C-alpha cells in the first residue's frame, strides 16, 4: 500500500460513497460482535452466503460482517439495506427463506422481525425500534455500519479526516482548546476533563512522551470498550494520533486485556492497515508527526486498569499502583510524560476535530457534555450497548431503551460504576446521566456498566458479590484495601450465612470509611462504595438478615428453609416442573412439597413460583 496524502483520503472517501449510502447493491450487515459470535452468527453468516450463492445473487448482494450492533440480546442479527430492515435471533435454517423472500421477492420475513413487547406489533425498520430510537450514536457512530477490518470503509465515514485536520490545520494548543471546548470528560470512570489532561502533558518538558489507551475494561458487566474496539478500531487509533500531536508524543500503547481476542485481532489489523497507509509511522500523511502504536496485552487484573498500575504493567513490572503525585502527565510510563485515555474517550476525539468542540458540547448538561455509552445488562429485557446524550434520565435507559424488567418482576436498583460504584433505587430513577447528579445519589458514572437488578436480588448478597470481586482483585499493596476489604467480605459473608451480629453494620461503615480515606489507589478508595450505597438504600435488608435471620429477596441459601407455605401455594406445579433435581413432590391440585434430601438448593423453584410460596 502506498502512503497516503490528505488528497488520497478524499479519493478513498468518495470511492466508498456508494457502499456507505447503500446504493447500487443490497447490503446485508451481519453482526460479528462477541455477543453474536457466541450465539452463532458465524454459522448464520456462512448459511447466508451459501443461500446467496445458491440463488446466484453474488453480484448484487454484499454481506458485510460488522462489529457489535448494540442490541446483543437479539443476536445473531442482521440489518438489510436499503430499507434498514432489522432481523433478530436468526438461525442457520432461516437463511434460505430470508434470501428467497426478502432478496428475491422483496418481502421481509415477518416472523424474524423485531416484535414490540407491548403492542406485539412487528417493527421492520431498525431506527423505529425503541431500543435504537432513543439513542444518539457518536462514539458508536460506525457500529454496525462498517466492516471493522476495512480501513477504506472507515475513511469513507470521515475517518482520519479529523487527524488530517489536526495534523495540518491545528497547533497542539488549538487541539487542546477544542477538546476543552467540547467539555469531554474521561469516560474511563473518573471524568477528568480530557483537554486539561492533555494540556498538562503538552506542557511537560521532555523529548519522549507517550499516549496510552486504556482498553483494560475490568468491571463486571462492562463491555463498552470491547464493543468499540471490535466495531470501530480505527476511531481509537485516530484519537490517539490526534492526542500524539497535541502532546508531541511519538509512541503509543493500547493496553488491552488478553480476554478480548477479537478486539485485539481487529486492532492489530487496523494498526497494520494504518501503517500501510502511512497513517501511523514516520511523517503521518506527510506531516511532521511520527507516531507508532503497539498493543500491550494485559493478563486481566482489574487493578491494571488503574493508570499507574497499567503503566507499571507495560514496563513489564508487577501491576501495582503508586501514589500520585507525580502524575503521569509529568512522570508516567518509564518516568516520561504520559497521557492515558479510555477507549471511548479516544473514539470521540476524531469527530470533535471534524465537527468542533462546540458541536460536541451541543448536547448534555451543565457539567457533562456529549453522549455516554452504557453496557446495559442484568435483569433487563434489552441487554445491549446503548449510547445516550448526557442528561437522559436513567428511567429512559432502563425502560424505553432497555424495555423494562423481564418476567413481570419489579425493578429494584441499577448498579452504575460496577464495583467502584453504587446502586440507584427506583426512587432516584429520574436522575439524569450526569457525573455530578449520579454522584449525588451515591453512585458514580463509572465507565458505563449498568447492571439492572430486579426484586429477586438480595442487596446484601450483591454487596457481598462486589466486595468479593474487590478483595480478589486488590493488588495487595496497601494495607487498608488488602486487609480491610477482606475483613468486609468476611462480615458480609457472615451476614449472608445468617451469622450476622448486631454491630456488624457499624463495623462495615467504620471499615468503609477507613478504607476510603486511607487506601492508596482508586480501587481501594472506591471499593466500599457498593456496601455503602446498599446500606444507604437497603439498610432494612441488612437488618433483616442480621436480626431476623431472614433474606427478604430469598437469595441467601443459608437463610432459606426450602419449604412451601401451603396457604400461599396455588398448587400450580410450576416448581415441580422446574426442579432439576426432582426434589419436589407434587400432584395435580396438591400443595407442593420439597424433599430436602434431594434438594440441591439451586433456588430454581424460588424463581419459578409466581406466588412467593416457597420460603
Amino acid at each position, binding site marked *: 500500500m502506498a502512503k497516503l496524502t490528505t488528497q488520497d483520503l478524499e479519493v478513498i472517501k468518495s470511492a466508498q460513497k456508494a457502499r456507505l449510502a447503500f446504493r447500487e447493491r443490497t447490503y446485508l450487515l451481519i453482526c460479528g460482535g462477541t455477543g453474536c459470535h457466541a450465539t452463532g452468527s458465524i454459522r448464520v453468516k456462512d448459511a447466508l452466503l451459501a443461500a446467496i450463492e445458491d440463488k446466484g445473487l453474488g453480484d448484487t448482494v454484499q454481506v458485510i460482517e460488522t462489529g457489535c450492533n448494540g442490541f446483543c440480546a437479539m443476536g445473531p442479527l442482521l440489518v438489510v439495506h436499503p430499507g434498514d430492515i432489522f432481523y433478530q435471533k436468526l438461525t442457520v435454517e432461516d437463511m434460505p427463506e430470508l434470501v428467497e423472500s426478502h432478496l428475491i421477492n422483496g418481502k421481509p420475513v415477518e416472523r424474524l422481525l423485531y416484535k414490540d413487547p407491548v403492542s406485539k406489533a412487528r417493527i421492520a425498520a431498525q431506527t423505529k425500534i425503541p431500543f435504537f430510537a432513543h439513542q444518539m450514536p457518536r462514539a458508536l457512530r460506525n457500529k454496525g455500519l462498517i466492516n471493522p477490518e476495512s480501513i477504506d470503509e472507515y475513511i469513507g465515514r470521515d475517518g482520519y479526516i479529523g487527524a488530517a485536520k489536526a495534523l495540518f490545520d491545528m497547533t497542539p494548543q488549538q487541539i487542546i482548546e477544542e477538546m476543552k471546548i467540547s467539555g469531554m470528560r474521561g469516560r474511563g470512570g473518573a471524568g477528568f476533563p480530557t483537554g486539561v489532561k492533555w494540556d498538562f502533558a503538552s506542557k511537560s518538558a521532555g523529548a519522549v512522551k507517550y499516549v496510552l489507551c486504556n482498553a483494560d475494561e475490568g468491571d463486571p458487566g462492562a463491555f463498552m470498550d470491547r464493543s468499540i474496539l471490535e466495531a470501530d478500531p480505527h476511531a481509537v487509533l485516530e484519537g490517539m494520533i490526534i492526542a500524539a500531536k497535541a502532546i508531541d508524543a511519538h509512541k503509543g500503547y493500547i493496553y488491552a486485556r488478553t480476554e478480548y481476542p477479537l478486539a485485539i485481532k481487529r486492532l492489530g489489523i487496523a494498526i497494520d492497515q494504518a501503517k500501510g497507509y502511512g497513517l501511523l509511522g514516520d511523517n503521518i500523511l506527510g506531516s511532521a508527526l511520527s507516531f507508532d502504536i503497539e498493543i500491550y496485552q494485559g493478563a486481566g487484573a482489574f487493578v491494571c486498569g488503574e493508570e499507574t498500575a497499567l503503566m507499571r504493567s507495560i514496563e513489564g513490572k508487577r501491576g501495582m499502583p503508586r501514589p500520585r503525585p507525580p502524575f503521569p502527565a509529568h512522570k508516567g510510563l518509564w518516568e516520561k510524560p504520559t497521557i492515558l485515555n479510555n477507549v471511548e474517550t479516544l473514539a470521540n476525539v476524531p469527530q470533535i476535530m471534524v465537527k468542533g468542540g462546540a458541536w460536541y458540547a451541543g448536547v448534555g448538561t451543565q457539567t457533562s457534555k456529549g453522549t455516554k455509552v452504557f453496557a446495559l445488562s442484568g435483569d433487563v429485557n434489552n441487554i445491549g450497548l446503548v449510547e445516550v446524550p448526557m442528561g437522559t434520565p436513567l428511567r429512559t435507559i432502563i425502560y424505553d431503551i432497555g424495555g423494562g424488567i423481564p418476567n413481570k418482576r419489579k425493578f429494584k436498583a441499577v448498579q452504575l460504576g460496577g464495583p467502584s460504584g453504587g446502586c440507584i433505587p427506583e426512587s432516584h430513577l429520574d436522575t439524569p446521566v450526569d457525573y455530578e447528579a449520579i454522584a449525588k445519589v451515591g453512585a458514580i458514572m463509572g465507565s458505563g456498566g449498568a447492571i439492572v437488578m430486579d426484586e429477586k436480588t438480595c442487596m446484601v448478597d450483591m454487596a457481598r458479590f462486589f466486595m468479593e470481586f474487590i478483595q480478589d482483585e486488590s*493488588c495487595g499493596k496497601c494495607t487498608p484495601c488488602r*486487609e480491610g476489604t477482606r*475483613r468486609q467480605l468476611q462480615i458480609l459473608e457472615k451476614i449472608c450465612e445468617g451469622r450476622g451480629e448486631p454491630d456488624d453494620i457499624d463495623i462495615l461503615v467504620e471499615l468503609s470509611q477507613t478504607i476510603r480515606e486511607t487506601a492508596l489507589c482508586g480501587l481501594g478508595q472506591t471499593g466500599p462504595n457498593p456496601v455503602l450505597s446498599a446500606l444507604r438504600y437497603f439498610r432494612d435488608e441488612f437488618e433483616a438478615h442480621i436480626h431476623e435471620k431472614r433474606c427478604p429477596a430469598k437469595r441467601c441459601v443459608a437463610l432459606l428453609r426450602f419449604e412451601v407455605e401451603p396457604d400461599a401455594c396455588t398448587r400450580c406445579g410450576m416448581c415441580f416442573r422446574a426442579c432439576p433435581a426432582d426434589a419436589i413432590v407434587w400432584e395435580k391440585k396438591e400443595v407442593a412439597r420439597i424433599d430436602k434430601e434431594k434438594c440441591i438448593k439451586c433456588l430454581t423453584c424460588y424463581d419459578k413460583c409466581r406466588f412467593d410460596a416457597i420460603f
Partner: protein
Amino acid sequence: MPTLKIDNREINVPAGTKVIEAAERLGIMIPRFCFHPALGSVGACRVCAVAFTEGPVKGIQMSCMIDAQDGMVVSTTDAEAVDFRRHVIEFLMLNHPHDCPVCDEGGHCLLQDLTVAGGHGLRRYRGLKRTHINQDLGPLVQHEMNRCIQCYRCSRYYQEFTGYRDLGVMGIGSRVYFGRSAPGMLESPFAGNLIDICPTGVYTDKPSRYIGRRWDYQRQPSLCIHCSLGCNLTASARYRQVVRHEARPNLEVNGHFICDRGRYGYAYASIADRPRQAMAAGTPGPIVDILAGAREAIQQTVEKHGPGSVAVVVSPRSSLETLAVVKEACGQHGWTGPAAAHTNRQALNRNTAVSCLRPELAVSLAADTEAHDVLVIGADPLNEAPMLALSLRQVQRRGGHVIVIDPRGVQLPFDFDHWAVHPSAMGAILQALIQEIGGHRATAPDTPATFDITKLARRLNASPRPVVVCGTDILTPHEIALAGDLARALRRTHKVAGLFYTLAGANAFAAALLHDQPVSTEAVLDRIEDGGVRLLVAVEQDLWREFPDRKRLQAALKRLDHLVVLDYVDSPLNREAGHFIPTQPLYESGGHWINQEGRLQAASPVMAGGEPIEITGGSDHPPRVFDRRIPGDEPLAAWRAVAALAGEDEADPAPQLKTALADFHPAVNLSTPEATGQRIDLEAIAHDLVESGPAPEPAEDDAPADAVVLLLVDWTFGTEPLSAMAPALTRMEAAPVARLHPDEIARLGLAEGRPVTVSLNGNRLTVPVQADPRMAAGVMAVPRHHLLEWQVFGETRVIVKRSQLKAESE
C-alpha cells in the same frame, strides 16, 4: 533548603528530603513499615500518616511520600492522624499470628513496637487468620510467612536493590506471598539482609534461631574482617559464643547492608576446635609460662645468630594494634619482617595500590554508588569483595554503566559490559586507554576488535563521574599502577574521578604501612632456606592454610630451630610450633582496622571470651560444673602476646601499645576519637613507592599458544579461610572446579566435568573442569577452596604449559 515545622519544632532540611526523614532528624520517629532509607518510599503500608495543617500540602498524608517544603506545618500527634494509624495497625494485626512468644523477632520487632505504640492493645477480630505455607530458603534465612505484613521491603530489596530474581512477591490481594516460586536456597549472597530489613519475623536468622532475645545478647559495634571493605556490623554474643551479625548502617561504607560471608562468617570464633590452650611442644601449660618460654627461645636465637635470625609474619587481617606492636618489636629488636603478604607479587601489589591511592582520588564504597561510569579492572567483585557488587548494582540502577576488564567469567547481578581479556593484555589496554584519555590515538595489541578502547575512553571522558576500580589479586604491580594513572588521567578532565582498590585482607591497608619496601613470607622463607632466619614467629598468620606452597613451607619449617605461633584458629601449623599461644578474635580483643580506601574503623570487644557454654555444658544450661575462672579464658589479644614476647617480663603492655600506635605511621593518628571512622591522612603516605620499587615484571610471554595462565582465585564462599569454617556457609559453597572457556577446553584436549591435573615442578593439582563461556581464552581459574589442596605452585598466578596439563579419565 526548605524549612518546615514538625510538632512545633522548626527544621531545615536539604531539598528532596521526605517529611518522615525530616522528622527523624528531630528525633521524631514517625511509624513506618514500607519506608526504608535504602529502598525509598512506595506508600504501601499507610502507617506513616501525619496531619499537614498549614502550607502547600493539607490534610492527612503519608509522610514518606511528601517532600519537605517551605512553610509546611506538620503534626504527628493530630488526633485524626493517630486514629488513621491506629486503624492501619489494627488492619495489619487482623492476620498477624499471636506468635510473639515463639518468634525470633520478638524484642526487636518493628511491628511489636508499633502495635504497642499505636495503642492497639486489644484485638476486636475473632475470625480466622489467613495462613501460608513456609518455604525452606536454605541454611541462612528462616521463612515464616504468616507473620508478613506485606510491606514489600523484601521484594524491593531483593529484586530492585540487589538485582536477584529468585525471591519476590506473588499473588494479589490478601493472597500476596513473599518467597520463591519453589522452596530452595536463596541465590543472592546478600540474602541475609532480608532478616534485618523485614520489619517482622518473616525472615529470621536461621543459625541463631531460638538462641535468645536481642536483649539477652551482648551486642557491640563490630567490623567484618572477611574482605578488605570493612563493612560495619553489630555482633551479638550469648553464653560466650558469637551468635549473630547484623548489618550496622554506615552511610560512608556499607550503607545498610552486609554480605552473607560477613554475616555468617563468625563461627570460627566459637567453634569447638578453636585453640584456647597455650602449649610448649604440644604440652599444655599456663600461658605466662609458655610466653616466657617463647621469649627465652627468641633471646637465645638472637644471642646465637643475631637479631635478624628471628623473623615475624603477621596477618593482614590482624588488628592495627597487633600490626603496630609487631612493627615496633621488629624495629626495636632488629628482627626480620614483619612479613604481611605471602608472595613478593602480592606484597608489591598491595603496596603499589596503597601508594597510588592519592587523597584526591580515593572514594568510599558508598561514593562508588554515585559514580556514572565504573571501570573495573582485574577484580571480580562478587567473589572478592561482595558488597562492592552491591554498590555497582546501585550505579547501574541509577542509570550508570559498569565495564569490567577481567579474564575471569565475572558475574554481577545486573547488566554490564565484560571484556574478558587475557591477563597479559591488560597492561597494554590500560596504557592505550590512558593515551586515549589524554587525547592521543592508541591501540592495544592482542585486544579483540569488539573491545573498542577509543569508545571506552570517550565514554569515560564524557562521564560526569567516572570511577576506576582495581583488584590486587590477579594483577601485577604494573597494571595496578596503571589503574592509578588512568584515574589520574581522568582527573585531569574531571573534577571528580575516583579510584578504588580492593586489597587482600581486612587490614591490608595498614599492612602496607608496615614498611616502604614490603616483606613477603616468600622472602622470609628464602632467608630460612639460606639459614639466615632460625626462628619464626607467626602472628595470626595461618601459613599452612594460606601460603601458596605448602611443601616448601613444610620443608622450611623443618629447617627452623624454633617456631612460635600465635593464633585463634586451629591449624596443623600450631602443632609444629615449639610454643603456641592462643589469641583472641576481634570479638574479644576489639581493635582498629583500616579498610581498602584508607578508612580507620574500630570494633569493640563483644564479650570476655572463654569456652562457650554450649561446649562446656554439652549444650546443657546452666553449667553444672563450677570453677573460679571461666574455662578457656586464656587467649590474649595478639598485641598483648607480642608485647610480652618482645618486652620485659611482667611489664604492663599498655604503654607499649600506645607508643607502637603513635609510631606506627604518620598517616595514622589514633590520638583523637574523631579519627576513627574517617579516612587516614593519605597525603602522608609516600606516593613514589611504585617508582622506587622494583621495576614491573616483564609481561608474561604473550600467552604462548601452548600455555594457559592459571589463576587461583577467591570465591564468595569457600575460599576466605575464616568464613570457610562456618557450618552455616558450607552449604552455600559450590564445589571447587577449574573454569575455562569451552574453546579452551577443546583446545587443551580436556573434557567438561572431567578432572584435569596440573603438574608443575613436581607438584600436582587435580580439579574437575567446568566450561564458562565468559572466561577469556588462555586462562584457567581455580578457587583457593578449603576443600582443595591448592597450595602447590608457590603463587596464585602461574603459567602452565599444555604439556603440564593432563585430562583425567574420571
